[in-house]
């Protein structure tokens, strides 16, 4: 349970809406219970009164009649508002959880988060966050409502007869405590296994599909398919167990409700025959217990899947506990010059959990002085460490040894805002946000006017997109998911446009012209280098043609400058 505690605490912020939701849920249950119990009382009381003409004529049927009508209207209204309030609260909670999680992720180093970059893992992350909001709807609210219903009903009944009050709390209390515990324990293992197997099936299906060409060539497609099918069978087996449990939970609840009502009837009949309670009250107490079990119904299911939710919570905690990047508080000096110095920089990835051996030295003692305004090209084969060098400079990777200075100040001492104000990066992969072209550009310069954006769009040749999309304002064009998918070359252009708009003090390009045809490449590189003529530029490239434009060329191999 300790996995969930930090997340349960989060609910405090929304206690207002959440408790209104819970109160309405409780009211719905109580009205529903009251309706059936009062109707039972009413029918029995009138049946008894109707035996003689005198009692029949003096019987006050107005108040109970009004009560019955009141409960029925009250139940309808309470149910309606309960649904509204709880949905509203869920939306709020979900929004809040996501934004909270986003905020928590911000200061984390991308080194650790790198493994979450794969879309599938991110999807799971989002699902895990969502699982936490189910805690309220599926667990918190029903448990609270059930406990309160049981307590209120028992108190109400003991007003008529202590025996019945005690009987109710015992009968329902046992169910309230035993079933959740039992189903938590029973569901724990299978629930976790089910989650694990689902991931495994996804993996096996991916293996089968991605490896289809190969397995076809090696004549083992059938075997690969069997691997998938075996995992599917395994998953189904676990699901069968879970569904048997779910059925058992429902069955036990149903039996509990019925048997409790029978026992209540037996107890109440005794009290009635001893003259402690009247006949109508006897019927009322039986009907009340029968109806009260509605409140307990959701409990076994909720606890059966609790193990899964815990797993989600512990996975999230694991991420949140990772090391945060610490930024300093230095701002840009007034007379800032973009000289960059690397002094004996070493870097290696932390030991991988599986192979237990430390990774090789990615950077093996780099010392490099780049005067302000120099345009530097960085060359080297794949894996020579040039991208790592850049990721360290931009603080996307942490944990290097040595010293890196920009403008005479160690990069670790800069405040986050200052560092990224001075660095402009065109990364290897451009992220296109699912948003308008305007928003995708404006992130580089929030105060930019449309005219300026359009100019930049034209300059990088993204105005071609207009032809595909008709006449409406090009800047309103929706990109990314649910919109226009940009080709690799167009993504590059977008990244270059962003860099043109931002104009930092230092420009860093990681294979910025990959995927562009030679003519556009020439044109775009001229533009960007022109815009950053007086600034420091570091460029990773594979193209010889680029080198002629640079002031200096550095070759790297095996994590060293050669």
């Amino acid at each position, binding site marked *: 349970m300790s996995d969930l505690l930090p997340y349960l605490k989060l609910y405090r912020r929304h206690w207002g809406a959440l408790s209104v939701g819970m109160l309405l849920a409780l009211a719905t249950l109580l009205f529903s219970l009251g*309706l059936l119990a009062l109707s039972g009382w009413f*029918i029995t009381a*009138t*049946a008894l009164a*109707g035996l003689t003409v005198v009692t*029949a004529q003096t019987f006050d*049927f107005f108040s*109970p*009649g009004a009560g*019955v009508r009141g409960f029925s209207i009250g139940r309808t209204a309470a*149910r309606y508002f309960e649904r509204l309030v709880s*949905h509203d609260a869920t*939306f709020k909670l*979900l*929004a809040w959880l996501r*934004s909270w999680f*986003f905020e928590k*992720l911000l200061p984390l180093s991308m080194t650790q988060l*790198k493994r*979450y970059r794969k879309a599938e893992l991110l999807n799971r992350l*989002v699902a895990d966050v969502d699982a936490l909001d189910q805690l309220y709807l599926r667990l918190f609210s029903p448990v609270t409502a059930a406990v309160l219903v049981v307590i209120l009903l028992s108190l109400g009944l003991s007003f008529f007869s202590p025996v019945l009050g005690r009987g109710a709390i015992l009968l329902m209390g046992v169910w309230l405590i035993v079933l959740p515990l039992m189903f938590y324990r029973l569901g724990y293992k299978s629930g976790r296994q089910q989650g694990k197997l689902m991931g495994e099936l996804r993996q096996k299906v991916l293996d*089968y*599909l991605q*490896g*289809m*060409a190969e*397995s076809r*060539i*090696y*004549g083992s*497609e059938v*075997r690969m398919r069997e*691997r998938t099918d075996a995992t599917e069978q395994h998953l189904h087996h676990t*699901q*069968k167990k879970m*569904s048997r449990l779910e*059925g058992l939970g*429902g069955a036990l609840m149903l039996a509990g409700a*019925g*048997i409790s009502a*029978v026992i209540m*009837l037996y107890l109440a009949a005794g009290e*009635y025959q001893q003259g402690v309670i009247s006949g109508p009250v*006897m019927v009322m107490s*039986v009907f009340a217990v029968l109806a009260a079990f509605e409140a307990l119904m959701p409990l076994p299911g909720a606890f059966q899947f609790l193990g899964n939710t815990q797993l989600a919570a512990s996975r999230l905690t694991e991420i949140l506990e990772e090391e945060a990047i610490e930024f300093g508080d230095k701002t840009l000096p007034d007379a800032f010059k973009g000289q960059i110095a690397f002094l004996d920089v070493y870097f290696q990835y932390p030991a*991988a959990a599986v*192979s237990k051996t430390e990774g090789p030295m990615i950077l093996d003692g780099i010392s490099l002085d780049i005067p302000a305004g120099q345009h530097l090209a960085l*060359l080297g*084969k*794949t894996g020579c460490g040039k991208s790592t060098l850049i990721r360290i400079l931009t603080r996307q990777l942490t944990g290097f040894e040595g010293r890196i200075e920009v403008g005479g100040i160690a990069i670790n001492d800069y405040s986050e805002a200052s560092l*990224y104000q001075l660095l402009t*990066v065109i990364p290897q992969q*451009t*992220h296109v*946000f*699912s948003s308008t072209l305007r928003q995708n550009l404006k*992130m580089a310069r*929030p105060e930019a006017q449309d005219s300026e954006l359009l100019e930049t769009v034209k300059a990088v040749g993204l105005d071609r997109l207009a032809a595909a999309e008709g006449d409406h304002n090009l800047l309103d064009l929706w990109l990314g998911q649910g919109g226009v998918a940009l080709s690799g070359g167009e993504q590059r252009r977008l990244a270059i446009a*962003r860099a043109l708009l931002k104009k930092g003090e230092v420009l860093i390009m990681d294979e910025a012209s990959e995927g562009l045809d030679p003519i556009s490449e020439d044109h775009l590189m001229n533009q960007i280098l022109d815009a950053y003529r007086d600034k420091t530029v570091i460029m990773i490239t*594979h193209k010889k043609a680029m080198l002629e434009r640079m002031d200096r060329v550095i070759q790297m191999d095996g994590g060293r400058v050669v």
Partner: protein
Amino acid sequence: MRRITEKRAYKWLIGQLSPTQNWLLASIILGLINGLLFLAQASLLAKIIHQIVMEDAVRASLIHDLMLTVMIIVLRALCHWGREITGFRAGLVVREVIRGAILNKLKALGPLVIAEQPAGSWSTMVVEQVEELQEFVARYIPQMALAVLIPLVILIVAFPMNWTAGLIFLGTAPLIPVFMALVGIKAAEANRRNFRALNRLGGFFLDRLQGMETLRLFQRTRHEHESLKTASEDFRHKTMQVLRLAFLSSTVLEFFASVSIAILAVYLGMSFLGYLNFGSYGAGVSLYSGLFLLLLAPEFYQPLRDLGTHYHAKSKAVGAAELILETLEREESRVHQGKGSLAMETPVSLNAERLTVQGSVEGRALLKEVSFDIATGERVAIIGPSGAGKSTLVNTLMGFWNYQGKIRVAGEDLSSFSMDNWRKRIAWLGQQPMIIHGTVYENVSLGRDLDESQVNRALAKAQAMEIVEQLPEGLNALLQEQGGNLSVGQAQRIALARAIAEPVKLLILDEPTASLDAYNERLVLDALEAIDPECTVITVTHRLKQIDSMDRVLMLENGQLVADGEPGVLKRESAVVQAFVAGLAGSLDNE
């Protein structure tokens, strides 16, 4: 591709239920028995109370009836359990069949079509979308039958006992189809909106998580954090407006359920008191019948209310079905093949005559009338700009594309062979190594019957032994892709071991060293040097050094063969090759 409408997707889903009819029927029957047993339970309870209150029966004399009630309750619980299990089995069968159908379809579509989309989107369909069908089959479908049957049974029981009570039920009964439609249309709409809003919100969140690095570099994290909040608020407002109305429809149902209890209670009370004197066929209302009818009232509406709560299962299932159906209805092109087989030891020479391959976009040929000869044991480079048809050519040779024209293998028509047999003669290594989630052994054998010594020999030949030696579990160590315990170069050497584990007559390499660093590139090329000289090797490449070491070069451009000859000769005499090679020399990878 045809757009799949919701209606058609629903129809298709219903059509998928036939293999699971029996489970569904069992689930419905158990639900119905449960309903009938409830009638018995209600009747017994009413009878016991009647005897205590009206006939002053002693508690002890009622033990028999009380025990009988408990027995009925236990039976009901068993029915409920059984219903849950049979429903689950029904869903299981449907999922198994549909998952199998999708995988078979993907198999028929072949690896080239699969590669058109990110593999993750396929696996989401095969795993998650199929799971979405479970609740629909297991709960919604049986509940649909019960929502009609149980109220009907209650009416049949109620009418002979008291026609007024029957009328109170029936008065709302014609509304049941209306409710069904209301719950159906309105709740569906609400559900759809609800889910769409949630999905869009989820998409927004995911998108910003993926782009977090970019956001940070542009110092936009705070801003996006704020817009995440505003977007969520916005979605909440819009969705709640719709839900406010949509919830009303199910509230109507709730209202009738509550009000019919109230009317029934008042009617019965007034009858007992003598104010009302109709409904019971002149026999007068007894406490027994009054209580019995009262207990039936909530149960009359319960099945419908349950149906409403399962409604989201339907919209999820239909949404999933739309996507699944879209894939299942894709056209597949079958590669012509015969039954012939090529003897193990036959050396492979290749001859292509006017080979033409049509792309999936109509009218665009990927290869146009390409003709060439490749002799046994020849080392051939295929070069050309990207999109020239190089990969199409090797994929066609491996039997993954339909083609026009002729391909002859050792003098015989390729289409006369069974593709399974032909592919046994080939090994292939692509640009991106494919590593499955499994051990080193599983990765090298890939489902073939190889013993450990064969695997070890292959690893040694592929210069991959050192990788295995580093892993404490050796051949049984689990391999993890990118970012796990393997670099791309190491992964490629494992993939190479897979390719050369069994002797073959044709080795096809598609830019095998394009994503490798210098060290791994050398190891892979060294390993390839040692290949059996009788084995024909075709390499798609951009590396000058590799081109120079070949016996022959075929150059493609726009799907046409523009040069064919020895590398030295072509470099001297062919203008297209000269231009292309000059371009390659501009890339620093070739230094």
